[in-house]
């Protein structure tokens, strides 16, 4: 288990250190040394929080590339969903037919599931209500949005990520 965490720990260390440097807003030796020490402390103190390889994809360049692609799709989804919500809310008759649906989800790793759930929340007309090992309970404003979830682009992206 420790073995699987090492790579994630290094990744977290880099992220945290970048965070520190952005906060510190100046690059001098002292700031870097103190930052390294603080970051090391935080990583070691929070070692039980780090994702092991069973829980998250490995962080490689392929991962970065694929997640960038995912970002683009997600941004598009967010904008579309916002426009739709605006249309629904501002139309006087409030045309919604809310309902629940349970859909299958193929993902195994916790982190990917999490982001998948959050992506569903942000994409048009759907809201993750329950996320379990096998399936997701989704609330939809209209049935057609729920239908669009199966075999969606985002799902394909996540399955790609899962394979890494």
């Amino acid at each position, binding site marked *: 288990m420790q073995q699987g965490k090492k790579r994630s720990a290094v990744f977290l260390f880099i992220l945290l250190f970048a*965070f520190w440097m952005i906060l*510190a807003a100046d690059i001098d030796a002292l700031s870097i040394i*103190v930052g390294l020490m*603080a970051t090391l402390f935080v990583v070691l*103190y929070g070692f039980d929080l*780090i994702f092991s390889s069973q829980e998250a994809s490995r962080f490689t360049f392929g991962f970065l590339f694929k997640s960038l692609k995912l970002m683009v799709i997600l941004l598009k989804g967010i904008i579309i969903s916002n426009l739709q919500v605006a249309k629904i809310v501002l139309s006087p008759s409030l045309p919604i037919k809310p309902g629940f649906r349970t859909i299958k989800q193929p993902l195994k790793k916790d982190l990917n*599931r999490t982001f998948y759930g959050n992506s569903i929340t942000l994409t048009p007309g759907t809201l993750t209500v329950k*996320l379990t090992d096998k399936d997701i309970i989704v609330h939809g404003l209209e049935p057609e949005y729920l239908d669009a979830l199966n075999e969606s682009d985002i799902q394909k992206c996540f399955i790609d990520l899962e394979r890494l």
Partner: protein
Amino acid sequence: MDDIIVKSITRIIIPFVQLYGIFIILHGHVSPGGGFSGGALFGTSLILYTLIFGVDKAQKKFSHRVSEIAESGGILIYLSIGVIGIFTAGYFLSNKAAGFPLGEAGSLLSGGMIPLLMIGVGIKVASTMVTLFHTLIMEERL
């Protein structure tokens, strides 16, 4: 709590909150913030941990013994730095007169004893907030 989404997001966020708390404690003399706000932020991250993972696990991470030492220790750091002033400058809690190097204004190592006192206060506040929360939410178990 066994909600995967909340749990994972918490696991991502907590280290950042902690680092931010430490940052605020250490930069108290060059930017807004300081021991209280930073300590409270660090404490909040551990409170979040308690809320998500339960009291038992959180107490393993931050045990009674550690909190006792941190509480007395935070003030003892403060006191011992103050006592240095009595011997060198003749007044309790003297800074410049006691010979603390003031350093270059605006850098991390400046202000003499100010960052050291801030660290003491930060440790104290963080540990207090966490322990208070644990004590308040714990049911009486024998």
